[in-house]
């Protein structure tokens, strides 16, 4: 048996939680909100392409970017590797664990069978930390699980080598170098600048604030993509799940981001960021209103244009508030370069 002593803590989001836990294991004291904020994790996108059966939206940056951007802005170096051959991937992972190195891996969430079956869906971008193995089972620190979990080798391997979009391909990472003196102030400023870019400056009509407004405009058209009333109810419930339950920390990552801003105000000794963190918390409360309204409509099965417009109107208010917020944040950053 080999289980590495590892402080397991639950986190709001699998990627920022995994990165924070690994760095803390290696002696770098950093919180999950700080990892998320430095990496400019806050985002919005509304997507519907001809090949998609149903529209979707995202409230965070692309999977993998939390780690890459955090590394680029702090100087932390991660060793990363993808594999074609599952046997080689398994062998190298086992060797690392046996040497005492906890390793983060990308998996299809569906195969993480320590969660109840009804909760598991196919998502290829879940991150967990492997902290030990014994016989045919692995010990897993999963940010969404209250305790260290166990998984059988076969399910774990299936999860690491599930195909499809964003296939994990056995991807793994772990930190190999952490600078002694990280310039946290610069990293935070870069993170804030990246966030204003995400939300205001990407010239595509479905990204950032423009994406929230597009979502608001398009939601009344959702019934035409639905195969049945149950299907539509499920999709509208998913608004609530994506904003509250699916690893966001609540309010579509806005509560997590508010936490980052509060920490950032102390590091940068900028009291205006403390005020803005409270404002972001209020914005998160607004996203929670969107969640609650969506759950109510889905439960009542009233998909009339008027009811869906209620969600659209709430989204427009969020767009206005976030536009004002990120413009002021942008100005604040320009004043303190």
């Amino acid at each position, binding site marked *: 048996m080999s289980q590495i002593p590892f402080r397991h803590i639950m986190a709001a989001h699998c990627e920022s939680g995994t990165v924070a836990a690994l760095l803390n294991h290696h002696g770098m004291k950093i919180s999950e909100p700080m990892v998320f904020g430095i990496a400019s994790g806050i985002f919005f996108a509304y997507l519907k392409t001809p090949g998609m059966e149903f529209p979707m939206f995202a409230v965070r940056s692309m999977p993998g970017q939390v780690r890459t951007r955090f590394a680029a802005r702090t100087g932390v170096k991660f060793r990363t590797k993808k594999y074609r051959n599952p046997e080689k991937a398994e062998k190298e992972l086992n060797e690392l664990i046996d040497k005492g190195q906890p390793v983060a891996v990308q998996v299809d969430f569906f195969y993480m069978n320590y969660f109840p079956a009804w909760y598991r869906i196919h998502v290829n971008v879940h991150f967990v930390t492997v902290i030990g193995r014994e016989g045919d089972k692995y010990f897993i620190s999963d940010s969404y699980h209250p305790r260290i979990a166990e998984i059988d080798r076969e399910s774990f391997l299936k999860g690491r080598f599930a195909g499809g979009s964003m296939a994990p391909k056995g991807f793994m990472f772990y930190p190999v170098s952490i600078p002694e003196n990280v310039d946290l102030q610069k990293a935070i400023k870069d993170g804030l600048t990246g966030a204003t870019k995400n939300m205001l400056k990407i010239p595509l009509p479905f990204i950032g604030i423009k994406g929230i407004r597009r979502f608001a405009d398009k939601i009344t058209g959702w019934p035409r993509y639905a195969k049945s009333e149950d299907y539509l109810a499920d999709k509208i419930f998913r608004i*609530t799940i994506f904003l509250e339950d699916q690893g966001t920390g609540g309010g579509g990552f806005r*509560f997590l981001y508010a936490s980052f801003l509060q920490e950032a105000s102390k590091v940068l000794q900028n009291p205006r960021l403390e005020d803005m963190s409270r404002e972001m918390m209020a914005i998160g409360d607004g996203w929670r209103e969107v969640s609650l309204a969506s*759950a109510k409509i889905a439960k009542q099965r009233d998909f009339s244009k008027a009811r869906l417009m209620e969600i659209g109107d709430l989204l427009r208010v969020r767009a206005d508030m976030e536009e004002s917020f990120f413009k002021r944040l942008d100005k604040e950053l320009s004043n303190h370069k």
Partner: protein
Amino acid sequence: MKEKEIEVDCPYQQVILYAEKDDGTFGPVQTGSYMAGNHISEHFRIADNVSKDLIAKLRKGQISPVYFYMTLEGLNISELAGRTGIPAFRVKRHTTPAGFRKIRISTLKRYADVLNIPVANMFQLINTVEDRNWDIGYQGDIDSSKTGTISQSVTGNPLLVETKVITNHK
């Protein structure tokens, strides 16, 4: 959001949310999942309705078993194509009853592996008594049942599954 306002009583599905604590600082709070705590019965009702509708269509030969299991697993044609390595236009064909009849066994095995079922289940529906106490478990997954399980285990033959009825007297 204040810490007290965010709490949901749902011990079987815990999440971390960030909230304002009594001292004015923001930080993580472990609580129950909002969806699981408030709407889980609705979730099961939707899943039940979808499943019953698909079974009815499967019985009438209106959909193919590939379409049936693909939908139950929450996959679509392009995702199933990516996971099986079978071109999307072929997967689309195989999701129709006519296309299904022409599938080779080796192709069917690829679908079965991705859809987490034995090949045999492409040709049969296994029913249990409808009291929710019986589960169908593939590869020995029988722990959650109260009364019993129809257990399906892999054998040395990749196309053969061993199906057992196990009564649980716990």
